[in-house]
């Protein structure tokens, strides 16, 4: 089962908190491969999280190296099992879209630099510090592991200038 269909909201798995992976066995390795195949097949896709293909497990893949936003600043292909963000700094707004929520985009604020620790499919623990678009993509995919969609994080429905109506 290489390329999997991307589930779309309102599929309930997308709003569920995914379970930690306790043992990296053959099933987990197949899941990682499915995520990679699905990511590569998606037009312009830079990441897929396991819940997006129906597996409520804390696994996601990210690769921004082929994206114009991330090609100069990335760690290549990341296969992350049980990822945890251990440090974050900065904040920037980017307009995001998601394959699980087609036809809608919105401005989301995320940390500009993150340190994320995760287990690789071969069992080694790895810690990286990502910034820029790669950091955004990792945070977006990791949100899927907590049942959070970018819709839950949209910061404004119009340009910030117009939010304050009264200056008294």
């Amino acid at each position, binding site marked *: 089962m290489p390329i999997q269909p991307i589930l779309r909201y309102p599929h309930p798995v997308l709003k569920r908190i995914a379970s930690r992976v306790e043992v990296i066995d053959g099933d987990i390795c197949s899941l990682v491969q499915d995520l990679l195949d699905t990511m590569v097949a998606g037009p312009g*896709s830079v990441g897929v999280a396991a819940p997006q293909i129906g597996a409520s497990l804390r696994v996601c893949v990210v690769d921004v190296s082929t994206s114009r936003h991330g090609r100069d600043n990335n760690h290549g292909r990341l296969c992350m099992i049980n990822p945890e963000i251990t440090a974050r700094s900065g904040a920037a707004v980017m*307009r995001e879209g998601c*394959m699980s929520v087609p036809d809608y985009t919105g401005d989301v604020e995320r940390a500009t630099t993150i340190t994320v620790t995760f287990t690789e499919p071969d069992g080694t623990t790895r810690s990286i510090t990502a910034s820029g*678009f790669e950091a955004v993509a990792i945070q*977006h995919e990791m949100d899927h592991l907590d049942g959070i969609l970018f819709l839950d994080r949209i910061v404004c429905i119009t*340009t910030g*200038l117009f939010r304050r109506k009264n200056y008294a």
Partner: protein
Amino acid sequence: MTSSDTPHYAISVVGKDRTGIVSGITEALYRLGCNIADSSCTMLAGEFAMIMIVSHPRPFSKSRLYDELRPTCEALGMSLAVRSLHADEALRQHTEAEICLISVYGADQPGIVYRVTKELASRDVNIMDLNTKLVGSDEEPVYVMMLEAALPAEVSPEQIEAILADLKKELNVEIGVRIVTPVSL
């Protein structure tokens, strides 16, 4: 979801702002069995403006929709306009284009919107969203315009910046161009 086989209408409702406009209008639409697809509602100075694309699952005439909504609008003191959409007009619009946010602000003067948008229109740049607001004091009014536009493939954001740089000097306003094309994740 919009689809091409159900009747769609563009409705605009504008009137003095007060609480209960959105709930009043949408209750009337709900009772008529209309579905609101895309909509945008905002406060402009003291006026509240609603623009909605609505559909109805069954054949439903434009005049009936107008007549059914009119009493609610009159009670709320709102103007009402209804237009039938052709099936192909109501379909969801997709774009792969680069999206730019163009900010323009400076001392208020006639023609800011016109001059900027004329440059864009002549290059087939499609405006998708536009807000303007008159701010500042009575003595020193400042005009602020924010617009989002889809660039045709042959026009780059740098070209837009260069084109608007001339206008910036001529009108003595600030003009900024930022790329806000959504990232697909």
